[in-house]
């Protein structure tokens, strides 16, 4: 029983990190039609900057979180404003450009921070563990679950209850009509891209407990984000949340039950979802 609970908690905390990674990419893909393959690399920028601020400069974890998010947000915004905005509705060019940035950002991180992987880190007050069903359990993971839930609710509210969210949803359905109605979609898209990159960067710091900063993150995280988006469906916070939790829990139990088939359960889930519902569990029809 406690074996089950421990693994479930592990799966949920992993799933929350996956949700944070995938949510921004999913919204950008759904709302703006932009395939941003550099999303994992942007996550990595956040993780490294957060490590530098929180661990290297020994500032607080909160500052690291903010710095990681801001750095990632600015990198994302620079790519969107400088280049991606010329490539709306050109998926081939977007794929080539953003994959170029995976190479560029990864190599720059290697240049700045060196090749050695950083130890997982977390906030001072979250180190250590507490007792749960007679077992010790790390506080940081529980904190990740809580923060993830709060962010999920916040993003959900942003998507369904605010003007910003309405613009996004309108833009998804009919970009031209939305613009004719006097909405400045260009500016809205830049804001969305910034928020999406900010969340990825902050997730990089928050998730450093599970996925410590290393130069392979750019591709690893991209893979995870794509899998979550496939399972949950493109273009909604709910989809990313469901996909993230599902993949997090299934992968954690998969590793516990069939250690030699690590990752395979995740791919299998994805294939089954694709066969049953090709647009993902909560995907919009395209």
């Amino acid at each position, binding site marked *: 029983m406690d074996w089950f609970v421990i693994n479930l908690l592990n799966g949920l905390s992993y799933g929350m990190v996956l949700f944070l990674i995938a949510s921004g990419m999913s919204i950008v893909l759904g709302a703006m039609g932009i395939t941003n393959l550099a999303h994992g690399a942007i996550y990595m920028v956040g993780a490294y900057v957060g490590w530098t601020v929180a661990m290297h400069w020994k500032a607080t974890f909160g500052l690291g979180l903010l710095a990681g998010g801001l750095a990632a947000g600015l990198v994302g915004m620079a790519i969107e404003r400088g280049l991606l905005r010329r490539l709306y509705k050109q998926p081939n060019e977007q794929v*080539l450009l953003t994959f170029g940035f995976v190479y560029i950002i990864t*190599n720059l991180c*290697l240049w700045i921070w060196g090749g050695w992987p950083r130890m997982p880190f977390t906030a001072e007050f979250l180190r250590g563990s507490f007792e749960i069903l007679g077992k010790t359990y790390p506080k940081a993971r529980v904190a990740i679950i809580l923060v993830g839930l709060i962010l999920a609710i916040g993003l959900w509210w942003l998507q369904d209850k605010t003007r910003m969210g309405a613009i996004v949803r309108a833009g998804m359905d009919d970009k031209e009509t939305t613009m004719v109605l006097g909405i400045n979609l260009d500016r809205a898209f830049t804001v969305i891209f910034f928020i999406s990159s900010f969340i990825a960067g902050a997730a990089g710091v928050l998730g450093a407990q599970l996925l410590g900063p290393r130069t392979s993150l750019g591709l690893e995280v991209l893979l995870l984000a794509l*899998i979550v988006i*496939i399972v949950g469906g493109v273009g909604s916070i709910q989809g990313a949340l469901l996909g993230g939790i599902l993949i997090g829990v299934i992968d954690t139990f998969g590793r516990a039950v069939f250690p030699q088939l*690590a990752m*395979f359960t995740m791919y299998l889930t994805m*294939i089954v979802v694709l066969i049953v519902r090709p647009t993902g569990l909560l995907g919009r029809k395209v």
Partner: protein
Amino acid sequence: MEPTKNETEKGLVTAIASYAVMALILAALPLFFSTYGQGLMTRFLIFALFAMSYNIVFGYAGLLSLGHAAFFGAGGYTVAILKFHYNIDLFWITAPLGILVATVIAALFGIIALRAYGIYFLLVTFALGQMLYSLTWNVKWFSSPGMQGITGIPLPDLAIPGFDLNTTRFYYVVLIFFLASVILLHRLVRSPYGLALVGIREDESRMEAVGYDTWLYKYTAFVISGLFAGVAGILFTYYNFFVSPNHLGIVTSFLPMVMAIMGGLGTFLGPVVGAAVFIFVENFASIFAPQRWPLILGGLFVLTILFAREGIGVYLWRLWKGVSYRFGSSKG
């Protein structure tokens, strides 16, 4: 405008002549190169073939696939496993089996992937490729002891007495496969079948309305494309002496996409130009700036998008046409 019969024949003669010139140049090149240069040329031809195979499904049928390495790697793994587990390296057995495995996997994946459209197709093909990656990564049967992947695969046995393969001779084997594929694929895209693929890319619902079974066209394009990717994968494993899960995964799947886009999408020889640029830039960057070559390569992608949007191949072609127009040497 319909070309007259005379014009078509003239075009055919020009095409044959230009391919003959290309074949002659490629056949003569090793004479001027060291073994290292020959190896590089071999690598270029293999990836040019890989990119051309991808161009069928992406450039002509308009399906943005992100799992093409699955067929490349499947061919490669088949010949590696035949050598490693069964000690078979007779080319006339390993190559057909490798092609068969790649084609069968393409036929299976195609059924699943073609349930999806647009960006979902990209996601599905990616997922399927990663599944094979994960399989070879986790199951010991796909690896030499203590390795991720199978190593120590020698050049194949051609069973021709007194003719053992070496780097130079293997280049010619690859060249023969490359030229044969160029001819076959050229005929394919110029046939009514190839034109129908372009029609589906441009407007699928109209083609359906006209009475084409568009699913079947896309499916066969996917499978044919997988077959040729398998050929490239087989040659690559022999060239590389080593096959690893990465050769099935996303890193390798990106290569033909990048080459095809860089060279000029949907043009027949664009991917070959893209492969040449990629392989040679990668090589020189890794010699002169071994730490920084990904930076240079990434920068190249970005510059291509900014300044040669239709692909470097098309850009060069325009440049050449502009030059020849200025000097009045031809009608272009």
